[in-house]
């Protein structure tokens, strides 16, 4: 680990019990959902990680605890380093407080995560779908959402396949 990370990493470990993971020189800190906003605020205000690069999610279905990880890449323009915050979320329809209050550009990134993974962000100002049509059913990047390769519908299995179809239903 590069020494410039040290103050931020040790503070987050001490204060929020963050778990440190290192892979290919990247620093990832796992925090609990309760500390999500506090950890991001501390990084921004005290350690100069002042710009949010992006928020994304990973679905670990069929695993349920945790089912999702939300990942935020936060960049520091003063030490030129990225720190990665990860938060595990359990269950099929989890919620997380919005990061919009800390980094305004989280708005669109969180809308994308809601659209693609169905994770609700509490307190978000404009939680609409962003990429899919507004009347779309389901959240396409979940692992239990079919990837394509539609089965051919015959009369004997018409209804069974209709149920699984990703197209919006009435």
């Amino acid at each position, binding site marked *: 680990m590069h020494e410039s990370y040290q103050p931020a990493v040790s503070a987050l470990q001490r204060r929020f019990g963050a778990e440190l993971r290192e892979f290919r020189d990247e620093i990832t800190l796992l925090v609990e959902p309760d500390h999500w906003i506090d950890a991001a605020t501390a990084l921004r205000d005290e350690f100069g990680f002042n*710009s949010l*690069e992006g928020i994304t999610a990973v679905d670990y279905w069929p695993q349920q605890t945790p089912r999702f990880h939300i990942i935020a890449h936060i960049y520091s323009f003063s030490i030129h380093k990225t720190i990665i915050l990860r938060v595990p979320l359990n269950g099929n329809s989890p919620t997380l407080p919005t990061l919009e209050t800390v980094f305004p550009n989280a708005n*669109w990134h969180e809308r994308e995560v809601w659209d693609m993974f169905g994770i609700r962000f509490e307190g978000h100002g404009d939680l609409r779908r962003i*990429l899919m049509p507004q009347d779309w059913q389901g959240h396409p*990047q979940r692992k239990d959402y079919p990837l394509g390769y539609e089965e051919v519908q015959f009369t004997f299995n018409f209804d069974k396949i209709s149920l699984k179809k990703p197209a919006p239903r009435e």
Partner: protein
Amino acid sequence: MTEQQLFEMGGMEHLFSERAMRGETMVLNMGPQHPSTHGVLRLVLELDGEIVQNCVPDIGFLHTGVEKNMEGKTYQKAEVMTDRLDYMNTIGNNLVYCMAVEKLCDLDVPPRAQGIRVILAELQRIASHLLWLGTSALDLAAMSVFLYAMREREMIMDIFELVSGQRMMTTYIRPGGLWRDVPVEFEQTVREFIRILPKRIDEYESLLTKNPLFIERTIGIGKISVEDCIRWGVTGPVLRGSGMGFDLRKVHPYMGYEQYDFNIPTETGGDINARYKVRVQEMRESIRIVEQALDKLPLGPVRSNNRKYVPPPRSEIGTSMEALIHHFKLWTEGFTPPVGSVYAVTESPRGELGCFLESDGSPKPYRVHFKTPSFTNLQIMPLLSKGHFVADLVGIIGSIDIVLGDTDR
């Protein structure tokens, strides 16, 4: 506002002011099929007369599910989808994806392959800026620049066709190196191109830089400060046009950018004119990088020798049993990187382009995410356009240089 009108706003009511609800200001739909939106972008505007009070971008018309599709393909096959993201920066998309895979697998890239990658990425940057220059000048009613810029861009497309057989969707950069070495005519063709380009850039500048109409339409319009850029995560020429000399090629050098001598052009205006000047200067800097990279280009292999990830050369397959097995395994099953997640970043013509890869140890990526510059930069449209005329909006969209394939993925 009647029920019918509310329905037509599609759940956006909370984004507009009370005055719009009372009908004092007008809510106007612009796009998605509008010639100046550079693709399929819809803007919902709140207008007070001709003045923009609020602007809500609506994206997603070009969403093709690239990230989801990549999860169903092996690492090698998934790469062809990256070309289709930002179709003005296809080489750069290949590059960032391959850099992420190489970081994940801890794969080396031979120096010759790095040099060729840099040359092509810089040519791609010039091509992208040329197209931007032409189209955004066209938006401001300067017709002839478009024709000249497309003429030079065509020469770059020819170079891509020469090396890869394709003009746009090249997939020429592969994990661990390149598809194959460049043909012998490559060096001469590129040298010829960079010899004539500086004079052509002077020509474009003589058409625009001191043109009073162009100045009138660009200075002081679409202003943004450095603080706002950082707060909103904006990168690339928009950030540099606001006065911060931040370039990932200098800050986090990749592919050997540290060996080349080049400047980061910055302007302090923060308006359309500043971004125009930054991009024109960047083209000149890119020419310098290409020239140096050509001079320094070493001889040697263009693909890594790590047979677990990179297919062996054809000549070996006929004589070596191991090479044949590796070839067979790589093209049927694919390679299996270690478990973990990585994030690779490059400086694309539009800003910071990042690729997040998560692997579960199988031959298919578990999750791919592209952090695209157009997506982050488009988000500041409301900030940039507030208080300007509708006619200036066209110039502002052009000046942040969005590609909708990049935004919607």
